[in-house]
């Protein structure tokens, strides 16, 4: 497997303006994202997760460091607008606010928007839009008005818009943060399916721990640095380190952690409530 995104020592600061000093956000961030993987990025507010997402989409340019997208150095001097558009065709983004990213009033028109920008002939756009709507399960809403949809449905439309452009990698910038639990589940199910069935690389920025447990890999950020990087099991097993960074851990992990502190012999890398329950039962039986 090859890396679709590779970041080497990225640093970024929002430039100051007159009296206000520049705000450093990212410090020396390095990582690689394998094609087809599902990576969750965790961190509390203001730790630079969204800035990182914007760097990966080339909305912002890093001050220092090198960013490779699909093996191409996007930070070199001789990068052209064409290269940037080309990279944006590979990496798409779904934003936090479902209302602020839909352009058209009709669902299918919005899904088509990206393809229209790419100058694809109309019959092909039609085909892609239908496919994308099928993938997110919104085909029957194709002619509906976007503003009447629920938050979860709007986010699925935004995802369809990204899919219609045939992108291989989608960055979700807290796309579930403004949704109700039902909508969040809808979107998470869609994201998981895209990753498993369509082989799409997913970078999911979130602060919901239980969403992060669905990923193959979790990157934890704090104050613009990557502090942890590993499988959900590895990362959440170090609950103390996460608490130190002002983050929560999944409820199952917290429970198991407390059990362990109380002297029970339990594993920490369990996220399924059922499994967790049997692990605890086993540990209690053992202790007796």
């Amino acid at each position, binding site marked *: 497997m090859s890396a679709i995104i590779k970041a080497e020592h990225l640093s970024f600061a929002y430039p100051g303006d007159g009296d206000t000093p520049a705000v450093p956000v990212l410090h020396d961030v390095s990582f690689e994202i394998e094609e087809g993987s599902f990576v969750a990025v965790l961190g509390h507010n203001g730790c630079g997760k969204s800035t990182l997402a*914007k760097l990966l*989409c080339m*909305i912002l340019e890093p001050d220092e460091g090198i960013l490779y997208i699909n093996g191409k150095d996007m930070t070199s001097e001789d990068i052209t607008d064409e290269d940037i*558009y080309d990279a*944006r*065709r590979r990496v*798409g*983004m779904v*934003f936090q*606010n479902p*209302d*602020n*990213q*839909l*352009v*058209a*009033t*009709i669902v*299918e*028109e919005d899904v*088509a*928007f*990206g*393809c*229209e*920008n*790419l*100058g*694809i*002939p*109309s019959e092909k*756009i*039609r085909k892609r*839009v239908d496919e994308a709507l099928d993938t997110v399960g919104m085909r029957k809403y194709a002619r509906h*008005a*976007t*503003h009447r949809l629920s938050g979860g449905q709007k986010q699925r439309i935004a995802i369809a*818009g*990204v899919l219609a*452009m045939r992108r291989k990698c989608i960055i979700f910038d807290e796309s579930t943060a403004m949704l109700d639990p039902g909508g969040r589940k809808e979107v998470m199910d869609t994201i998981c399916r895209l990753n498993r069935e369509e082989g799409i690389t997913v970078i999911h920025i979130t602060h919901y721990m239980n969403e992060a447990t669905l990923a193959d890999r979790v990157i934890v950020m704090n104050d613009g640095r990557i502090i942890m990087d590993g499988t959900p099991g590895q990362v959440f097993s170090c609950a103390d380190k996460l608490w130190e960074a002002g983050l929560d851990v999944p409820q199952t992990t917290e429970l198991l952690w407390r059990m362990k502190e109380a002297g029970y012999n339990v594993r920490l890398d369990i996220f399924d409530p059922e499994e967790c329950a049997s692990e605890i039962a086993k540990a209690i039986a053992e202790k007796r």
Partner: protein
Amino acid sequence: MRSDIVFGQYCEGSSFLHKLDPRWKIIFVFSYIVGLFLAKNIFAFALMTLSIILLWVLSGIRAKILIKGLRPLLFIIAFTAIINIFWFKGETPLLPDSWFFQIYLEGIINALLIVLRVAVLVTGTSILLTYTTTPIALTDGIEQLLAPLAKIKVPVHEFSMMMTIALRFIPTLIEETDKIMSAQKARGSDFSQGSLARRAKALVPVLVPLFISAFRRAEDLATAMECRCYTGGAGRTRMNVLHSTWRDAVMLVAIAAFIAGIVLLNIFAPGYVFAM
């Protein structure tokens, strides 16, 4: 929901008129209006009435909706009718000479015809455009009709993109206004009492957050559009290409026949000649 009002104009449907090409529809509406103003005698007005009934049948829109659409104009219609009845000097007085004012038969007919014309004008244009065309289709139609102007550097695409986005955000901003107003009411602000100046002042704490959020939304949207490779109108294609069909040809003939009929009736049909 208040946000429904904005799009309440468009009636979902798949009638003959719904399927017309929006570009042609815009042309049809203008021609139809010209036709209406050419009408000069009772026969021409009869044709006008016939045309509106035909349009209504073709649109498949319920009469209730059309009548509802006329309601806001009731005052203006009544006002012009009354003015015409009392001011018009005709040849057949209807009241005894001893009265201090006079009403003429021609005045009443005139008033009725004016009412008819205004009603047909409003209903006809609504049926042809607003009730049967989505705002988006309308914007597309305008963009393509004006496309030749892009050659002389008129930003046609940018204008239509602005229209599209404005239409898209109207319901969102209305919802937002409702939310902010509720929030301000919860803090004791009163929008419904006091003098006009007071009420206007009470709106300031609603408008300021609304504007701030609108700017934030605009920035978010710009980022999202950039992420979706939007680079302006050049090199852009459309999914839904507008096609002219046999329907547009039929409608073109019908509208041409309508105008021709009005003109011929004006010239050849005898009878009462309408005065503006």
